[in-house]
């Protein structure tokens, strides 16, 4: 009993700043390489770390420090956050863990109770958390945004973002911007009407919503006919980027619905397959760029906007680098949305080229028919959601490339809430020569500096470091480190599970660690 007075005294002390994330921390994430504070490492989404303890000379000495196995049978797509020695990661479908990075042991686990019926097209996956203060933010496959206490995993608040029975779910890692949590939705295969939301980080109250399919009377609505917009798709299922100086949030949008039968939704179908630039405070649209107007191949622009300030044609510009699912690489001016460069980076058979404004000149024979066509890249695209990396040291952009075709034929479809809304049949082509690689590109020209060949497919995200290394993995379960300058493989190790996540790096007790999800396990490597 006498301890109680002692406890009360202690409890009245101010909380330590350790283990907390402020907006200022997020703004200066690159100066805090001992932590991994947000999905893409920082607001510019370069996924580059200044850490150099592990480098091209000593990387062959990497050894595993610990592994954290999860029970899930789903793909683990999570990018962990690491704050002051504690790793926060998600486990599919919508669970979270706090793991000590010294020992690999958990501090707590959060298991979300899910309803029997949820709607996800492609696995009940989750890509990670966002953090502000001592709160973690988790999107769930039943379409809730949940705030968890970072010290206990207790639910502090939760809010229903959308109706799961209409086909909405959340798989994206949220993004904290100032005092708001930005979160998007999945559901492009279910005829949702997509949107991007901002919630008050403290209370969970919604601050703004931007619908990615405009309603009657709104700009862009004339790119739809009739009621097609109501089921138009344009989900927002990959984390975007933020430019604090311009106060703009950049976010990629997904495919139009139904996916493949364009006759059911004539028009350009804005703002599907776009990057949208939104005012961070109001959610108002400042500009957009549509990569694939009237898409009939399922080429979501669900890529990470990589923000780089660099010289372009003789003058410093605020660039956005975007290798798209449609096999073309784009450079945009992120102040205005002006197209600066577009160049093919993977095998494709759908576009004769691009006009001066970046609108594709489509080959008629590439449009899906009832009889069917073979399309390059296939419906999974030449890129997909996996994270690129940009190294300011080499000035190169690194990203995985898929050369994988698909056979598609169109079919009729009726909208039924919560049911798949595709308008096609399709199949992979196992006998066709598919291949994959990691590319290093000169951002300003699209010139391929080097290429690291992989087998038939790739789903890894990448991480570059000041140790002149690019880390990534293969679908066959290898984890590797490449030389940023040459692409030479300097180290690899078999992890025995598909890599479908991005690596992160951070410090534990002052020593650099690299972690990656493979199979259902997080593996952590270090030198000593």
């Amino acid at each position, binding site marked *: *009993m006498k301890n109680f007075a002692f406890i009360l005294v202690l409890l009245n002390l101010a909380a330590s700043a350790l283990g907390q994330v402020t907006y200022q921390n997020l703004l200066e994430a690159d100066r805090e390489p001992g932590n991994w504070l947000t999905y893409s490492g920082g607001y510019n989404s370069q996924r580059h770390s200044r850490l150099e303890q592990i480098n091209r000379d000593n990387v062959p000495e990497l050894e595993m420090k610990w592994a954290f196995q999860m029970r899930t049978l789903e793909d683990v797509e999570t990018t962990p956050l690491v704050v002051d020695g*504690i790793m926060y990661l998600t486990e599919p479908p919508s669970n979270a863990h706090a793991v*000590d990075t010294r020992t690999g042991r958990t501090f707590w686990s959060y298991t979300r109770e899910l309803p029997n019926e949820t709607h996800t*097209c492609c696995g009940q996956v989750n890509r990670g958390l966002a953090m502000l203060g001592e709160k973690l933010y988790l999107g769930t496959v039943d379409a809730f945004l949940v705030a968890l206490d970072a010290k*206990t995993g207790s639910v502090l608040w939760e809010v229903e973002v959308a109706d799961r029975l209409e086909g909405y779910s959340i798989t994206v890692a949220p993004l904290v911007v100032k005092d708001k949590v930005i979160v998007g939705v999945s559901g492009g295969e279910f005829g949702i009407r997509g949107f991007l939301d901002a919630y008050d980080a403290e209370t969970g109250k919604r601050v703004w919503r931007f619908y990615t399919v405009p309603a009657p009377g709104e700009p862009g609505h004339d790119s739809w006919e009739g009621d097609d917009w109501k089921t138009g798709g344009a989900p927002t299922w990959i984390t975007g980027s933020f430019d604090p100086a311009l106060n703009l949030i950049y976010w990629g949008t997904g495919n139009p619905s139904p996916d493949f039968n364009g006759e059911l939704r004539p028009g350009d179908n804005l703002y599907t397959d776009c990057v949208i630039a939104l005012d961070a405070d109001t959610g108002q649209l400042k500009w957009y760029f549509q990569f694939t107007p009237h898409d009939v191949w399922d080429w*979501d622009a669900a890529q990470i906007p990589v923000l780089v300030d660099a010289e372009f044609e003789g003058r410093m510009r605020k660039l956005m680098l975007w290798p798209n699912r449609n096999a073309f690489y784009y450079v945009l001016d992120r102040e205005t949305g002006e197209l600066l460069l577009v160049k093919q980076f993977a095998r494709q058979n759908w576009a004769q080229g691009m006009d001066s404004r970046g609108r594709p000149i489509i080959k008629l024979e590439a449009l899906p028919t009832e009889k069917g066509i073979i399309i390059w890249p296939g*419906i999974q695209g030449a890129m997909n959601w996996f994270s690129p990396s940009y190294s300011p040291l080499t000035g190169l952009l690194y990203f995985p490339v898929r050369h994988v075709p698909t056979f598609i034929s169109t079919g009729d479809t009726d909208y039924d809430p919560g049911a798949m809304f595709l308008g096609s049949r399709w199949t992979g082509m196992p006998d066709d020569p598919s291949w994959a690689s990691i590319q290093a590109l000169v951002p300003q020209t699209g010139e391929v500096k080097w290429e690291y060949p992989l087998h038939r497919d790739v789903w890894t995200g990448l991480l570059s470091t000041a140790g002149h290394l690019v880390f990534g993995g293969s679908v066959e379960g290898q984890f590797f480190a490449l030389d940023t300058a040459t692409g030479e493989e300097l180290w690899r190790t078999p992890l025995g599970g598909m890599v479908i996540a991005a690596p992160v790096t951070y410090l534990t007790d002052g020593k650099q660690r690299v972690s990656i999800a493979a199979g259902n396990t997080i593996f952590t490597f270090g030198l000593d």
Partner: protein
Amino acid sequence: MKMPRRWIALVLVLGGAVSVWAQQREENPYTTPEDVAIGAEIFQRRCVTCHGGDGTGGRGPDLTRGLFRYGSSDVALYRTIRSGISASGMPRLGLPEERVWRLISYVRSLSENPRVTIPGDPERGKQILSSQSDCKRCHLVNGEGGRLGPDLSEIGWMRSPQHLRSSILNPNREVDRGYRSVEAVQKGGQVIRGVPLNEDAYSIQLMDLEENLHSLWKSDLEDLRQEDRSWMPSYQGAFTGSELDDLVAYLYSLRRKKDSP
């Protein structure tokens, strides 16, 4: 669309699930008085430790209300008993199908004549908890409060009224493993006092009394003392009888999620 390659697998899985579901019954086929009697025998052997001999609960929830945290339909109860709820302490019982159904029949019979009475006023209890006691220094309730003690936001689903009352008056009578007192004495002499979060042969993770998280190698410790007592003081005498009734009624009313079928 992200990974349609898995749709084929999904169709196969869903097809499999449908066929499994077709074998699993939607309603309880074992509902005769004999089935209830057999269910009672199973209950006495497997359930009373947590739910009490009469089903009114203990460290496990009261089963006599006819409302269940993880669903009240036959199918939901079947799932709960057969598979367990890993996060809640409810184990997977691993009973054959017909014994699960008979157990459900018995559990349903418990709610025909509810035996639990809650004399207090939850609203007054809420005011007591907010203004007259220091519960929230250590306990979280719906997003507000401390971290050292259990999150009470859904405690009404998990504990019986008598267990709640007992925990307030005599916290040391039954202390959950995660809330026992720990004192880790480091080799330099520094002592970290708190509650354990995780432990293995080589390390221990704990939250100290200032709510800081620690992960300690046992090889770095001079001593590690763990006692089967709580940091929570007894509130015996701190409340009048009716205040205690009100507080228990409020705690018992805390169920964030509604009953679902």
